[in-house]
């Protein structure tokens, strides 16, 4: 009778962001703990898009896997294939001709341009500038077309194969790609200027989601995210795989470490990629047939293991392939993608910013969820849902 009612009002609210389209159209759950507008803690929960590709690779032959590996991620399919194919070439001891290596670089750089354009377009969308998103996507069509001319498909290139590439490049196609790049470069410059000058973009991105150089190293961030924090890490420069050793390019580094710096690193890298692609078109050597006959590729792989890495648009991507020399299938294929590394190590970046900044910060990491779903269980600290005292959070975050 007349018992006291106690209404508990939590000081910290849990806001689930995702798993349906948190910032982009891919499933990822960010469990955000907010105090008013301020984010005090973020837990990343992945595993909504796990497809078991590594296991699938063990069940299929080495050569079939080239096409399965390409489907790990749509946006960066040629870098995945290149990394895997280089591991196979290492196992077999095959060295493709230089022309093939140059063509691989061309395909990968075209892919880098369209990946970076997409990332920045999504960032523009998330800061509330939908028109800019539309315009970037419209101009992105040019590079998609260039990729179609080169590889035969707009997105899924299926271009790189053991011993070379799957189709050559004649002079007509070369001129066509050069023309498309000439039309694209001024647009990239223009968008870079928009990101430098436009008030909407600046207000939403400057000093948001900061990661210092120390943070980047401590959380082993990769790719443009690390380079925007002043860490010059680039597998193209350190490994000089394929034809990168013969090409001249700069590693773009910025020191600000915020969302804006990441966007700018991507624009600069896209421009740098245009420069690399032009160099490839100019310097393309003719030292042999880059297209091997797929019917005559070796079926038997000797026992051994190979570890390769490439610089994907999102950072360093590594493949570890083990062959037991017994059958036509690999014993193990281990994929380590940069998105996974960047996303699960990202929660510190959100803390202290408002809930409205979250989509911008997430988009600036350019998460590729289907890339990173290699494992099903991930948690940031000890994983369990728990309530925390405000004081504890203030001290612990």
């Amino acid at each position, binding site marked *: 009778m007349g018992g006291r009612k106690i209404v508990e009002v939590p000081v910290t609210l849990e806001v689930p962001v995702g798993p349906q389209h948190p910032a982009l159209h891919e499933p990822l759950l960010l469990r955000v703990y907010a105090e008013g507008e301020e984010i005090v803690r973020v837990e990343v929960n992945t595993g909504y898009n796990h497809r078991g590709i590594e296991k699938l690779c063990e069940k299929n*032959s080495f050569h079939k896997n080239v*096409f399965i590996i390409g*489907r790990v991620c749509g946006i960066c399919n040629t870098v995945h294939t290149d990394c895997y194919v280089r591991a196979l070439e290492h196992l077999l001891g095959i060295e493709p001709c230089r022309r093939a290596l140059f063509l691989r670089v061309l395909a990968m750089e075209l892919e880098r341009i369209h990946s970076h354009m997409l990332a920045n377009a999504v960032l523009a969308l998330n800061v509330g500038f939908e028109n800019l998103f539309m315009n970037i996507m*419209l101009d992105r069509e040019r590079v998609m077309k260039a990729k179609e001319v080169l590889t*035969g498909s707009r997105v*899924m290139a*299926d271009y790189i194969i053991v011993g070379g590439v799957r189709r050559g490049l004649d002079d007509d196609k070369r001129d066509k790609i050069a023309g498309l790049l000439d039309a694209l470069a001024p647009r990239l410059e223009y968008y870079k200027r928009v990101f430098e000058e436009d008030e909407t973009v600046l207000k939403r991105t400057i000093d948001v989601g900061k990661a210092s150089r120390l943070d980047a190293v401590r959380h082993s961030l990769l790719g443009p995210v690390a380079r925007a924090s002043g860490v010059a890490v680039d597998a193209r420069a350190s490994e000089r795989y394929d034809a990168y050793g013969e090409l001249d390019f700069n590693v773009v580094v910025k020191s600000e470490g915020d969302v804006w710096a990441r966007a700018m690193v991507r624009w600069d890298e896209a421009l740098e990629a245009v420069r690399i692609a032009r160099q490839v078109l100019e310097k393309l050597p003719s030292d042999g047939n880059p297209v091997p006959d*797929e*019917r005559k590729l070796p079926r038997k792989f000797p026992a051994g293991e190979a570890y390769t890495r490439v610089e994907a648009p999102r950072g360093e991507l590594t493949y570890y392939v083990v062959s037991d020399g017994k059958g036509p299938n690999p014993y193990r294929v281990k994929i380590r993608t940069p998105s996974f590394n960047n996303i699960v190590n990202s929660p510190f970046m959100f803390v202290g910013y408002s809930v409205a900044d979250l989509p911008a910060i997430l988009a600036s990491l350019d998460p590729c969820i289907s890339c990173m779903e290699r494992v099903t269980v991930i948690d940031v600290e000890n994983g369990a849902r728990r309530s925390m005292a405000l004081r504890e959070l203030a001290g612990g975050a």
Partner: protein
Amino acid sequence: MAKLKLLGLSLRNFLKGPATVEYPRVPAPVEPDYRGRHYADLRKCTGCSVCAIECPANAIEMVEVPSGYEVPASNRRRVYPLIDYGKCVFCYRCVAVCPFSAYVVSNEYKLAGPEKPDSGPLSLDTLSRVGGG
């Protein structure tokens, strides 16, 4: 001044119409060597099944040629590759590995439709019917 410039830009864009291609009312041309619909030419196919074994998407099934078709003598088992375009990823692995270069390629990409698309009718059309029917 800046506002006037912006107004001019908006008006120009407004009069220019949409920038997007109004597919399918306007055709969206692709390259001639775009990887589109492909099927086996059964005059060359020997039913060896290499394409079905090598298909990364398991989209190819070897099925029997229905009676009433004249099959070349090299195809003793009377089977041909039936491609399920719904499963196919258009990597052209089958085209590349076929020992008899039996695949016919095209840049046809408009494959969406109400019925389940497969390569059966296209492949069978390459054969002549028994009795000239």
